[in-house]
């Protein structure tokens, strides 16, 4: 596990879980669109709009950040909003009730008043009519003329007497029946009321068409510039002394009711404001009681995770928070204990291995000397014994190198390995390694080619360790190359140098690319070992690469050969951001379109190569549409899941497999790979989008 995570270790160490960046990357497409559109300034469109958006969101960003991170703020804001809603709802209900109550009382009082007024008007008309009839009993003038004389002053008198009963409480208006200019009659109104605009038209129609009283609400319009006010208007059709109908209206201003209502409104608004503010304050206090211990626990947990295992929470009281603290402390205690135990155990084991190696060396030296003597004298032995002597010498060689490797590994495990870095030209190291491997290559009939050695490839590195790594890789390549050419490629770009060793042998089965670095792992246990490798070479190489702050990664496909790539930073303590050489070589089967199943997907996938060299798709969201499409096109997306499939031996389809499989670190890790190929060092989110867009064509 730890050996496999070499490539991704630098990147992961800084990537704390729960960080906003992580959330954003893992968020849904919509979330990304929203945040990208509104908050990241990703609006597609005019630059003016984009500038505007940027200008708008700049002051908002800290607020949004606070919103995301502060649960107290969220709770208080939610409480405020909800209590505001409740208060508003309650206010509407209460105001509605009060309004209805006020109106009911007013309407009842007004109706009785108006009914009395209508009765008085009728009575006056009857009195006037009988008086006129008596007066004109002996008159000679036409009845029409006699009667009409009285109406003008009579009606004015009527309005005056009716309205004098309630100065300010109500006003009286008469209107002619019909439209505004009916029968030569003029409207009359008391108290500056404008009659025709104060009485609503539909009430007039109703009064015109029936003889019962009707009521409506209206606004009184005053002719003396007084502000208009809401009113209840009750009207009835009444006859004048001539028996001709007219409309009589009582207008009751609702000024008092309006005042009462606004008092209630003001009271409710004030009370509501207080309630909301107090609820907010209460919520703040309550949440603070809960959040403070939680924050403390979070801080303690952070410190624990940073390695300070002796940190403990302060526990007071016996409530739930105290229980949490106690449990937390107990957990920390146990963790510390276990970790201590494990550390002790691990230290003991390392020490044991180291001690064993050392202790074995002394008798081995003696055995070696004896064996050398026997080996020198093998000419004199019978063939069987001579063969045994040769075997003894060979196995002693292996034993020695195994011991040396074990010592080296135990030195790494103990952290005793020291890097002696100095600027060196990698070409020289490669040249030395290649020349050292020439004899073996000749035996195998393999030709080793070096590419990219036209220019110096300089990096700060430990030449001895580097040579050991490269020798290991080259010898491995020659051994597994089945007589085909081995290509060593050098490259330098963007603060990193890389050496890739490519062979065209049997290649690696899916999953093997990570397992090759495991200790004592063999691709085929049955295979003969011509060079007698110890099984620790790649492990040591990986430790060497890690000691340099670099990566060592493997790629391979069954039958298509494999490639091992060593990437080192140009200066010793600079973190790596990418590699100049793609992990998957250009001439891989996948890139060459030699899809085993003969599916036409190859052509499509070749397009990915320039953008995403080595197929190193960064960890996409698992449900990304692209990933599902890939899975659909190549059903063998997860090689380990489909071992029996015809083309399941491929290691390449990593976009999905790499993201899912925890042990597939070399694939998941080199997300920064893309940056090496693309000079624009944009954020990780940006880098995925063009890739997707490109691939989606």
């Amino acid at each position, binding site marked *: 596990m730890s050996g496999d995570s070499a490539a991704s270790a630098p990147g992961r160490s800084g990537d704390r879980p729960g960080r906003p960046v992580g959330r954003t990357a893992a968020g849904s497409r919509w979330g990304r669109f929203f945040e990208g559109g509104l908050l990241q300034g990703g609006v597609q469109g005019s630059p003016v709009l984009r500038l505007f958006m940027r200008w708008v969101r700049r002051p908002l960003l800290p607020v949004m950040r606070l919103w995301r991170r502060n649960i107290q703020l969220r709770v208080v804001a939610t409480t405020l909003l909800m209590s505001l809603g409740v208060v508003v709802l309650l206010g509407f209900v209460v105001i509605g009730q009060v309004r209805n109550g006020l109106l009911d009382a007013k309407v009842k009082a007004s109706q009785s008043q108006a009914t009395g007024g209508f009765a008085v008007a009728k009575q006056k008309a009857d009195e006037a009519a009988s008086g006129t009839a008596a007066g004109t009993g002996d008159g000679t003038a*036409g009845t029409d003329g006699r009667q009409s004389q*009285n109406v*003008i*002053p009579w009606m*004015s008198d009527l309005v005056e007497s009716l309205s004098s009963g309630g100065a300010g409480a109500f006003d009286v208006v008469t209107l002619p029946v019909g439209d505004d*200019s009916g029968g*030569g009659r*003029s409207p*009359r109104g008391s108290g*500056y009321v404008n009659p025709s605009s104060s009485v609503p038209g539909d009430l007039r129609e109703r009064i015109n068409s029936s003889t019962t009283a009707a009521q409506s609400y209206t606004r009184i319009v005053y002719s003396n510039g007084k502000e208009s006010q809401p009113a209840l208007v009750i009207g009835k059709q009444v006859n004048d002394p001539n028996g001709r109908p007219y409309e009589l209206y009582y207008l009751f201003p609702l000024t008092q009711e309006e005042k009462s209502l606004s008092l209630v409104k003001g009271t409710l608004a004030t009370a509501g404001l207080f309630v909301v503010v107090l609820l907010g304050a209460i919520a703040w206090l309550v949440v603070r009681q809960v959040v403070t211990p939680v924050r403390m626990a979070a801080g303690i947990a952070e410190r624990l995770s940073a390695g300070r295992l002796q940190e403990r929470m302060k526990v007071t009281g016996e409530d739930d928070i105290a229980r949490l603290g106690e449990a937390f402390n107990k957990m920390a205690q146990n963790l510390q204990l276990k970790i201590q135990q494990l550390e002790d155990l691990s230290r003991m084991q390392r020490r044991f291995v180291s001690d064993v190696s050392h202790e074995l060396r002394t008798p081995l030296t003696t055995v070696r000397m004896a064996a050398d003597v026997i080996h020198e004298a093998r000419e004199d032995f019978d063939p069987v014994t001579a063969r045994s002597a040769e075997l003894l010498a060979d196995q002693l060689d292996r034993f020695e190198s195994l011991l040396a490797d074990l010592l080296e590994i135990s030195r790494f495990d103990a952290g005793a390995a020291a890097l002696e870095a100095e600027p060196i030209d990698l070409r020289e190291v490669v040249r030395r390694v290649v020349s050292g491997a020439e004899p073996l290559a000749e035996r195998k009939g393999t030709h080793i080619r070096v590419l990219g050695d036209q220019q110096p490839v300089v990096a700060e590195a430990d030449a001895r360790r580097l040579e050991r790594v490269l020798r290991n890789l080259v010898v491995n390549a020659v051994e597994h190359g089945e007589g085909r050419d081995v290509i060593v490629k050098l490259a330098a770009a963007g603060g990193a140098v890389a050496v890739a060793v490519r062979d065209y042998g049997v290649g690696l089965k899916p999953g093997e690319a990570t397992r090759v670095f495991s200790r004592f792992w063999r691709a085929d246990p049955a295979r003969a070992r011509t060079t007698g490798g110890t099984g620790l070479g790649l492990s040591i190489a990986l430790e060497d690469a890690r000691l340099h702050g670099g990566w060592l990664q493997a790629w391979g496909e069954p039958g298509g050969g494999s490639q091992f790539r060593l990437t080192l930073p140009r200066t010793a303590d600079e973190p790596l951001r990418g590699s100049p050489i793609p992990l998957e070589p250009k001439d891989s089967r996948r890139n060459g379109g030699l899809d085993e199943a003969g599916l036409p997907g190859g052509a499509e996938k070749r397009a990915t190569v320039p953008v995403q060299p080595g197929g190193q798709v960064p960890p996409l969201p698992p449900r990304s549409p692209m990933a599902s499409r890939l899975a659909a096109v190549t059903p063998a997306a997860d090689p380990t899941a489909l071992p029996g499939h015809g083309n399941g031996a491929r290691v390449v389809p990593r976009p999905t497999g790499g993201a899912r499989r925890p042990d597939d670190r070399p694939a998941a890790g080199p997300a920064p790979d893309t940056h090496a190929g693309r000079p624009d060092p944009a954020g990780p989110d940006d880098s995925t989008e063009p890739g997707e867009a490109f691939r989606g064509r």
Partner: protein
Amino acid sequence: MGADREGGVRHRLGRAVAYAVCGVVVLAGCASMPDSGDLRDVESTPRQDTGVRVFAMPPADDAQPSEIMQGFLEALTSDDPQYDTARKYLTADAARTWRPEESATVLANGPSVVPGPQPGGREPIDSLTYVLSGSRVATVDTQQAYAPEDGSYRKKVHLTKDAKSGQWRIDSLPQGVVMGKSDFQRNYTSVNKYYFASSTKVGATGQPVAVADPVFVRSKVDPMTQVVRSLLAGPTSWLGPVVRSSFPTGTALQEGVSGLAPDDQNGLAVPLSGKVSRIGLAKCTEMATQLLFTLRNLTPTLESVELQGPGGHRLCDLTAERAESTAWHASAQSPEFLYFLDGKHRLVRLPTGSSGTSAVPVPGPLGEEGGKELQSVAVSRDEHTVAGVGADGKSLYVASLASGGSLGDAVLSSRGATATDRLTTPSWDARGDLWVADSDPRDPKLYVLEQGVGKPVEVGIPDLPGRIRDVRMAADGVRVALVVEKDGKQSLLIGRIEREGRSGERPAVVELRSAAPDLEQVTTMSWAGDSRLVVVGLEQGGVHQMRYVQVDGSTLDGPAPAALSGVKAIAASEDERVPLVAYSEDGIVRLPSGAQWQKVDKDGTAPVYPG
């Protein structure tokens, strides 16, 4: 140590409880109605006007002729400033020639519309005649002066049907407006214009005397501007010969001024045009006095006026206090004492401001016990001199109110047959002249004694219809109220006094006019305001009652004084705050404002205020 701490805790707890109790008490105070507190002024809210308004409507299309008539008459009772809506009922020619402001005819019950004689024939008629009829009550003339009238009103109105539009319109009608009495009272209000008496001056400084000249203006159509225009236009023709206006002839409101209204400091700026720029300050102050007196009549809260000449520059301004010192104004003079004759025939007096009833005898001969028995007295307006008529009504005496004097001989005597046919109650004017009438049926006369001491001069009354039963001089000395009896009926007449008009001629009372045409009997009367009298009389078919009348014969909207039976004499002052005093069956009673009649002296007679 432990006890100390315990004590401290208890102390703190006690304090907390005390604070909590205080808080609860304060909150409880907020939660109940206050039963004590600081003092504050109450702002007066103006009473809402409930007056009825008629909103004139233009004629409807294809309105019937009767509807045209009805609508036109309604429009005349509306508040339309220039009667524009009413003019829409007229033909174009008639609208041009009709002048509504020329007069206003008041009919008892509104005009009745009677169709006139219709042209015969069956062809469609295009012209109609209506007759407006009713019984007249009064007329308001071009000068807005009110004059009671009686008789019947009958005017023709002619309608034609416009050939082109087919609409009926009025093409011939009487000038002026006509309306019912109640509409008139709603739409018009009486305002006193003030001028100065041409011949009367009072006091050592020779203050001019303000004379009220009542006119009627439309109360709902910018009354203030109307009143100012009317004031500038000069006095009404009845009063014109004896008063003068300080405004130079031709003075008018500036062009286009309307809607004059006091500002928030109750000041009013009046822009004048005409020859006002070169007017001296004294004259200008007089002008402002006239304006202020007049406008305070309409708006009692007005505090000051400012006259502005052409171009808006200030001519002068005047506040209400200074106006009172600029001109003598009867209603601003408050009499100090009420005088009456007590049971011992002494002249006693009672301070007007007091509510007590303990009258003290006046100094001088008339206040002495055992003096001359008197029937009636009159105290001069400066309250220095008193005139009395003997118990038999035969002789008139004048005496000083200063102590130590003696009653001299009679300055005037009557030859009437009976006590009731002899001298009436005398009356003083502001100049100090004493007026008394002799109601001898054979030779009725009115005398004036200059300054109360001169030789009695007979006053000419050219058109006196009968004999004078009572005479009361207005304070301004240019108007006189007479009760004239003829054929057993009395009427209240107001006359204008012209003196020294033509050199050498004796003073004369001219142009008598009725102030209370509906009264048959007038028992007694007294001036009760600048242009108001209080009268006790009998209406036709009615009972004796006391009421106020205007000098121009119009009736007032205000309430009559509380009823009192058996009133034989009444005394009132021009100052309305002074209580009304009457001599009735119960002796002398008085009516303080806002209260009921109170008895002052059971045995007293002949109550008078100075004047």
